[in-house]
């Protein structure tokens, strides 16, 4: 399931983000790439501990926290530390790859990367190229969203960031280990949840809505791994 949510970050938040990134200490993006991805990765990342990275990820996490659709769509169990990257100049693309299945957090925690997320931080007209293309079961999709929007797509997909030929593409990306491992099941739950929401909005808490709420919970009980 590929889903985009507009306006995760507000205009003020985006301008704040740009201010934080003004003198940020970018470093090559190889640090988080597996052996195969390292061959095709040509971008820059912020060190996790630098102020800009800390501030931006706090902001993004807050915004996610306040976004019900995001929760319904991803059913997150763990969110892997959001990172910030940049595609510009010579470091301007990330070839076709599948994200590593398990991200290690120090020695203590592991996160299975069920879902990949990208929050766009640059306006699409400020750079050329830089499309995120995702090869899903429905074919290849090319994504270039307004600043502040987020795209959520399965970690299982082959994807790439096309070369940026003008300007810079800034983005925040992270992975989610979902309570529901299967993308299909997550999609069913999301669609059920959304249609139920619409149903309740239109008709109120009718008996069918109560039954279906039960169905939602029972499916979740069946599929979720807490």
């Amino acid at each position, binding site marked *: 399931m590929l889903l985009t949510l507009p306006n995760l970050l507000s205009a003020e938040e985006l301008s704040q983000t740009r201010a934080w990134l003004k003198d940020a200490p970018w470093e090559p993006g*190889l640090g988080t790439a597996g052996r195969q991805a390292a061959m095709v990765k040509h971008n820059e990342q912020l060190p996790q501990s630098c102020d800009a990275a800390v501030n931006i990820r706090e902001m993004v996490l807050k915004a996610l926290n306040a976004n019900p659709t995001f929760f319904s769509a991803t059913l997150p169990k763990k969110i892997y530390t959001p990172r910030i990257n940049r595609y510009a100049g010579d470091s301007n693309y990330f070839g076709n790859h599948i994200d590593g299945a398990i991200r290690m957090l*120090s*020695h203590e925690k592991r996160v299975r990367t069920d879902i990949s997320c990208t929050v766009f931080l640059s306006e699409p007209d400020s750079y050329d190229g830089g499309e995120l293309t995702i090869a899903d079961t429905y074919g290849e999709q090319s994504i270039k969203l307004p600043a502040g929007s987020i795209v959520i797509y399965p970690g299982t997909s082959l994807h790439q960031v096309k070369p940026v030929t003008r300007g810079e593409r800034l983005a925040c990306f992270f992975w989610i280990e979902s309570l529901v491992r299967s993308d299909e099941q997550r999609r069913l739950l*999301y669609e059920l949840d959304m249609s139920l929401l619409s149903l309740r909005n239109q008709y109120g808490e009718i008996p069918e809505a109560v039954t279906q709420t039960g169905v939602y919970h029972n499916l979740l009980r069946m599929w979720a791994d807490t």
Partner: protein
Amino acid sequence: MATTRSRLNRRRLSLPAPRNSCVQVARPSKLLPLGAMLLAASFASAVRAQTENTLSTVTVREKAEVAEGKDSLRATETRIGKGQQKLRDIPQSITVVTERMMDDRNLDTVKDALKQTAGITFQAAEGGEEDIRLRGFALSTTGDIFVDGIRDPAFYDRDTFNLDRVELLRGSASMLFGRGSTGGAVNMVNKVPRLMDENQIDVTVGSHNHRRVVGDFNQQTGESSALRVSAMKTTADNNGAGSSIDKQGIAGSYRWGIGERDEFTASLYRLENNNGINYGMPWIKPTSTSPASATTLLPVSPTSNYGMASDYNDGTATYATLAHTHRFDGDTELTTRLRRGAYTRDQRASTIRLTTGENLSNFGPSTVLTRGTQNKIQDLDSVYLQSDLSAKFDALGMKHELLSGIDVAREQKTVYAARTAAQGLGGVDLVKPNTTVGTPDDGAWVNEGSRALRVNNQYTSTAWGVYAQDLVQVAPHWKLLGGLRYDNLNGNYDSFAAPANGANATNGMKSNYQMNVGEWSKRVGALFQPNERESYHFSAATSFNTSGDAYSLGANNADVPPEQSINLELGAKIDSADKNFTTRYALFRSTKLHERNTDPLVDVAVLSGKRHATGLELDFTGRITPRWEAYGSFMWIPDARIDEAYKSPTGSDNERTGARPSLTPRISATLWNTYQINGQWRVGAGLNHRGAQTPNRNPGWEAPAFTTADVMAEYRVSEQLTFKGNVSNLTNKLYADQLYSGHYVPGAGRLVQVTGSYKF
């Protein structure tokens, strides 16, 4: 610390809703999706009734990219400063040898691992122990060896099987550790249990019938608990320098509450050495009329053993440790550790000497070698309790990082001597026959087991110390450091004279000496960190050594005040633009005042009243490209001098005023590179160099400079299975590795080893 952080963040994330400019929440719907109600406790204000007792999402934080020692040649954090600290925040030189390095170069002993740091040299005095010098100053005889930050003063052949890394702090460290530390301190960091299931078995076979098996098993036993067990067994006919190896070790550690408010660890360590010993080979002159300065090494294979078949070097190290960490709110933690250790050592060695008149002109297979007796039989028991607080807080408008602690120690050492037949009570006189150069390993044997022992001396030392250090961010790029420590040491030493011949007495006269010392140590420093890549520092620190550091006192030193040392250092730590590569630079000057070292063998006070060493250090470590990983350590000491010789009663054996101190090469350097050719193949090569250096007591000659080369090739069959081949000392260079005025211990000759590693 990192785990604390993730806890805290978790808490922060579940605080009530953030200020909200987000369109999504402001959506017109009164209702919320079920998935959102289920999980997002954070916007509970909107749906409080429904979301009570619901889950909140866990946001997991990375550690700041801290690799385990296994993963990288480079380390960015250390615990040598007591609390966990970034290397860049310590205004002092630190070199870290990671497990990756130890694996790559097949470094099985701590001594080998330390050789991979510039400035380290070894004295050959008492045999198998690591009698380590740094910048020419003794480390082990002053007790400057630590395991997980706790003093580990016993003499034994330390193995690397349970080590994550070896850290070398250069310069004074008394402010943190108490007595000792003119040259620096060595901290060995044991492996800790981690929250994952990961096991590895390494099997090595090599020349001289070398067989080594190391197992490292980590099992997660619960949500926040894990067990780790390491075990090792090694045997070899020869270690490449004339000693057989037969040793085994096991270490088990259980850790629970990992990353939680209260974390506990209980661990047990046991190492047994039943090794052989090459006590050393005599020096030789080219001709009988050659000056002493022409003295050099014997032209014999380093693998030749001229000791007795009955010689051995046994030792055990056993210690149990309990640790507790309590994490307060904010970045504050209190760690308390209790360790009880018991160490035994039983060494029966032969000193090898030439007979009078032998020199290279008449040297050959028939040259006679005599075999003396050098036994070291001693036990050490220790108890340490220490509690260290590290806190980060804001006060007076500035950021503070406070380290503070208190520690208590009790060490008890008993040294035994063998009785001669004339002294009675079962004493024996064992005669060791001579041998010849052409007949190494001649199998000659005496019954070492028939010796009768008596207590020669015993020492009980009690000590306590208290310290505090504050690192204050005084301006955006500036940090100032100030620290103070007070130590109180009491030593109680009984020395027993040999019983008179025919007296049939247990011992001769008993002498008792006592030492009471109270001493302050200071450290100040300034750090300038203009950006994330650069950190510059200046530091000044003092340290002190007491007469009782090596657990012996005598009439001539019991009342001598502690030696004082001052270390000045101007240094920099600079990362490359991509931060994958770290370089370190330091200009240092170490000065020791009223020094009075004692030769451990002949009880002659040696060295000087004052000496200094000034030099330059340079280290680099990290990835030059994604495939090329490099490590280098370089030290240049152009200026080292005995400023004032110690006036000893025996006089003549002392080092002279104006001389360069012994075991202080002008240049020492080591280099290691690995290159990942493709997914399967990785190759490595390195060099190790030590400039010419004089043995202790400066007998008037230098051991020649040497450079050895190592190579490695690794083939990865699968993620689980890897094979690695190592050749160390590729050119089979003959060199003196450990020096003493009467003899040297050769470095290992060429060794070929193949290791298979299986991970599961």
